[in-house]
């Protein structure tokens, strides 16, 4: 197996992966979306809310705010146990992080106050909003808000707010075959003009694939259609893929990938155990 990191940013990673079966790569991708736990606000208790927003609207906005979960994965109990606790209204410390939001615009003032995600006061410094500048509510003079929010670990399959990734995608790599006996370049450059990603270039009077643009090809096959001489053919390479992961900031892309593999592994272990229990295998 060969893995090359093509792009690396704090919240985004693009990798070239060779010799991995597609179904395994897809399992990992789907596990990243639906089964890697992160922290998110799940229950909100309002004591005062005289803003123009309904309680539900503010609670929904709070739920969508990404919270840093890197350290929380070890610290807190798994999502399944905490879900039960939250349904029974038991906000225990081994499951939940309490976050407070309080704000008031005194009567008679002339400004509108905006409350941001950064105004949330957390009881655990490891779990705090990733971005401080997300507006939660606005208050006109005389309005007040006071609430307690409880965050817990959860999985993307329960609600998308717990999904650590905004994008997790894989794509094929193109295999562009040009038949130089049929090709009439440089007189005909139809395929080059028509390509939306500018993958093809003229080099020494021959149509060639731009060396750094091959991974950009979307396999749209417009060039195949545009070629009057049927000289170009687009195929895809077997067992070579590009994996793109973009996180919400709750976990790093590296951690998301590692956790996904861990979760997948434990699921397979569970399957093996069940098979052993049934006596199907030893």
């Amino acid at each position, binding site marked *: 197996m060969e893995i090359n990191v093509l792009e690396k940013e704090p919240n985004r990673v693009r990798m070239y992966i060779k010799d991995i079966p597609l179904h395994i790569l897809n399992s990992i991708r789907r596990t990243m979306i639906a089964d890697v736990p992160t922290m998110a606000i799940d229950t909100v208790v309002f004591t005062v809310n005289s803003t123009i927003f309904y309680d539900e609207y503010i609670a929904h906005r709070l739920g969508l705010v990404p919270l840093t979960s890197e350290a929380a994965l070890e610290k807190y109990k798994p999502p399944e146990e905490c879900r039960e606790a939250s349904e029974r209204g038991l906000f225990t410390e081994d499951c939940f992080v309490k976050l407070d939001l309080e704000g008031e615009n005194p009567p008679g003032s002339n400004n*509108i106050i905006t409350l941001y995600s950064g105004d949330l006061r957390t009881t655990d410094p490891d779990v705090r909003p990733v971005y401080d500048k997300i*507006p939660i509510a606005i208050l006109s003079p005389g309005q007040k808000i006071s609430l307690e929010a409880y965050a817990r670990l959860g999985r993307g399959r329960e609600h998308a707010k717990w999904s650590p990734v*905004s994008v997790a995608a894989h794509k094929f790599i193109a295999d562009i075959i040009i038949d130089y006996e049929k090709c009439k370049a440089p007189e005909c450059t139809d395929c080059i003009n028509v390509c939306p990603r500018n993958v093809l270039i003229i080099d020494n009077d021959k149509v060639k694939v731009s060396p750094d643009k091959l991974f950009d090809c979307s396999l749209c096959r417009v060039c195949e259609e545009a070629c009057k001489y049927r000289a170009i053919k687009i195929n895809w390479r077997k067992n070579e893929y590009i994996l793109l992961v973009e996180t919400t900031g709750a976990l790093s892309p590296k951690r998301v990938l590692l956790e996904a593999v861990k979760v997948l592994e434990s699921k397979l272990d569970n399957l093996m155990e069940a098979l052993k229990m049934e006596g199907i295998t030893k």
Partner: protein
Amino acid sequence: MLFPVRCFTCGAPIGHLWEEFKKRVEAGEDPGKVLDDLGVKRYCCRRMFLSHVEIAYELLNFPKVS
């Protein structure tokens, strides 16, 4: 109402970028260039910014009954 916390389609957090976007566009910059600068690449996220209308500030003008 307020600017959404996340993109409706892909779920990428965008709420924290709104105030800078608004400030810069009101100062006369080209919205497309500002979005490029903020790292908003996909068209699903870009339309969230371009099509947003801030109604919440209008609602503040009405007194709250109850």
